[in-house]
């Protein structure tokens, strides 16, 4: 399990223990990974987040076009595995959750414990975001070296 924000870890761990999903991914509505459980490669997590956020965003736009209420949950049922996509509304932001589950659990169980996860995240979320310094001013030579090695130049 990996999380960007420390306060996400405990609620997510409880969800994983209770709902028994194979993969769980929490992401921003723009597709940036917040937390994940079950993925082996960081770069694959990013692809899953981009696709999950894309599905959610396009479904929301269809709802807007049709004048329907927003879709809060989307479920895609597969023969061996299914996936569950849902909005997570927090005090200051909105995320998306993607849960992949198999025969070890049921949709109803995932839905029930996901709702509890959202409640716990809403309670745990900080009301004010702490701000900290990020990059040194002289990062450019390191960026250039990284890009040169990336492109073999």
């Amino acid at each position, binding site marked *: 399990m*990996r999380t*960007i924000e*420390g306060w996400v870890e405990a609620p997510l761990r409880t969800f994983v223990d209770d709902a028994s999903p194979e993969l769980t991914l929490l992401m*921003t*509505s*723009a*597709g*940036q*990974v*917040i937390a994940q459980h079950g993925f082996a*490669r*960081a*770069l*694959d997590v*990013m*692809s899953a987040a*981009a*696709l999950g956020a*894309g599905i959610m*965003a*396009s479904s929301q*736009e269809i709802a807007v076009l049709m004048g329907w209420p927003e879709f809060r949950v989307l479920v895609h049922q597969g023969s061996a595995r299914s996936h569950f996509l849902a909005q997570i509304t927090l005090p200051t932001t909105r995320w998306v959750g993607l849960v992949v589950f198999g025969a070890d659990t049921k949709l109803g169980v995932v839905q029930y414990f996901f709702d509890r996860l959202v409640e716990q995240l809403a309670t745990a979320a900080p009301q004010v*975001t*702490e*701000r*900290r*310094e*990020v*990059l*040194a*001013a002289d*990062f*450019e030579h*390191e*960026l*250039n*070296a*990284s*890009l040169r*090695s*990336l*492109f*073999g*130049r």
Partner: protein
Amino acid sequence: MSLVNFTTREITCKIVYYGPGRSGKTTNLHYIYGRVPESRRGRMVSLATQTDRTLFFDFLPLDLGVISGFTTRFQLYTVPGQVYYNATRKLVLQGTDGVVFVADSQARRQDDNLESLQNLQQNLLQQGADVRQFPVVLQYNKQDLPRDLILTTEELDDTLNFRDLKSFPADAIRGTGVFETLRSVSELVLKRLAAGGTVG
């Protein structure tokens, strides 16, 4: 918006390649995908039509390595260029940290370039971005075509580069200018992150 994990010291930024249809946005990503070692990139995801036109987006995650002590990852997206796909362009543009505008250098495509650039500006404004400060670089692609078919970089600058942005001539199929464009937008995005000095 860039995501920063202070515990594991990781930064993730989102860059979108924007521009009119068939200007070479997907070709840029294909070239990058082909040149970068497998350990430094994820799978390239393309949501395309049967004729390989981008339907929703292309996506390529890149691991840039360690910068200022942070493992830095960039997510490269393209948008569909055709005018009627604006709804999906808006979705892909959400939360972006920087944009590469890929213009088609052919003289006959100049109206399409302008329309797409105006569309980018509108969509950024709708998302509340300050377009004067937002990291954007221009790439003038297809500069390898015969001289009588294309505009020079100076001519393209005259009509498209009214904000005096960095611009790069390119031939994305052979890779000319692709690296320089990515380097430039990466630098702008990270400079903005550093200048902001702080992130939540």
